[in-house]
């Protein structure tokens, strides 16, 4: 028996407000983080990811006060990423009551931090975010600093490297798909997932419940991270905080398990 797949709202912070980007650019205002998170708490989301997309670029520390307020009201597993440079900042996030840390830029600039976090807090508390784009030869290469700078590792190599340093999960984001409503790059996600041993969170492009059903019925990916789908009513429409209906997603998933058993 496997666990039901996780559906994880992923919210982007810019300073003190929530925004939503397209291809990591053009942030639009979504709303107040506390109010929005309160709604996801009421909707009993499986987990929640919060990313401060400006912290690393601005060389700023996380907004600890805001995270503290969130942790006092949200009773689900919470993950934070953005601007984390050293173990002291990481300790502070855990102390506030978050149980997962997401590292992107520092995984390239300070890989020893990965090992340090895994040793002190366990791999289960560490997600490595890998953002990628195709180069002119159509090869998927890594980017950092919220997608603004190319760092150029091969995605699979980097996943395996992070796994060996102690990462507990990989959050894989296709920069070209993020915020587009164009669907997940399913083949590539599945290819990576088959080659790593730790859970993969697929992020970027999911537009409708069928995309999630496809992901979970055609791959062993354990989680999907959602942006547009959970904060907008529909493509081209206004903000509406919502969660996709799980019933059919779970049913399809169980059907696949039965047929593969």
């Amino acid at each position, binding site marked *: *028996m*496997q666990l*039901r797949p*996780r559906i994880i709202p992923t919210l982007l912070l810019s300073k003190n407000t929530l925004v939503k980007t397209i291809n990591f650019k053009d942030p639009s205002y979504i709303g107040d983080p506390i109010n929005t998170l309160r709604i996801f708490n009421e909707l009993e989301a499986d987990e929640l990811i919060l990313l401060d997309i400006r912290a690393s670029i601005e060389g700023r520390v996380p907004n600890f006060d805001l995270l503290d307020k969130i942790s*006092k009201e949200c*009773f689900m597993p919470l993950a934070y990423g953005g601007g984390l440079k050293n173990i002291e900042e990481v300790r502070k996030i855990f102390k506030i*009551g978050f*149980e997962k840390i997401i590292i992107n830029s520092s995984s390239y600039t300070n890989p020893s931090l990965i090992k340090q976090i895994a040793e002190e807090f366990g791999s*289960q508390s560490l997600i490595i975010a890998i953002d990628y784009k195709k180069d002119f030869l159509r090869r998927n290469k890594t980017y950092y600093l919220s997608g603004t700078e190319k760092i150029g590792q091969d995605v699979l190599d980097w996943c395996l490297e992070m796994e060996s340093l102690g990462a507990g999960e990989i959050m894989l984001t296709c920069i070209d798909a993020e915020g587009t409503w164009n669907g997940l790059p399913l083949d590539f996600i599945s290819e990576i997932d088959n080659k790593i041993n730790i859970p993969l969170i697929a992020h970027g492009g999911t537009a409708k419940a069928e995309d999630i059903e496809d992901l979970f019925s055609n791959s062993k990916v354990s989680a999907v991270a959602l942006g547009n789908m959970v904060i907008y009513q529909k493509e081209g429409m206004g903000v509406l905080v919502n969660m996709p209906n799980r019933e059919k997603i779970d049913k399809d998933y169980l059907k696949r398990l039965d047929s593969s058993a």
Partner: protein
Amino acid sequence: MNIAIIDYGMGNLGSIKNMLSYLGKESEITRNKDFILSADKIILPGVGSFDAAMTNLINLDLKSVLEEAVRHKKIHTLGICLGMQLLTRSSEEGNMDGLGFIPSTTRKFNFDQPDIKVPHMGWNYVDVKNTSNIARDLPDDSRFYFVHSYYVEVDSQENSLFKTNYSINFDSGIYKENIYGVQFHPEKSHKFGMKILSNFINI
């Protein structure tokens, strides 16, 4: 009411305190002997490894304090996650003796199927074996957030409170007299976990 959340340097204690505050109950994150011994309720949390946790409890002189509080003063005590595993005699994760408050042992998940990942991480269900205590009035289909690589096995079924299936059936909740343990994180399990914590503080 005095609620002591034992601080022995393992894991995030803030989220338990946060949920208790939400329930209108103040609590202390503490390693103070007098506070613990005069508490109405004790919560033993924990994330990390078994031996590191036992070493910390011993070095901070908390092992003997807990023995007195739990065995002699009969203070209601709830172990969470690693805190539950510490209530057992021993763990396959380490070599040190556990607190041994509930006749049980902690074992390692060992699966042949590559599909069954360890840690067991995510939401899962429980089969309630006794609804008279902290499991009172749990909503149907209650689900809880789990993260663990080791699981507890009771010696005798009379000490099993919850069973959970993850390829095998294991004891996701245990109890004996004034002592309770849950493998999942009630403080991260929405209204379901809140019900467990609220039952515990109202025993």
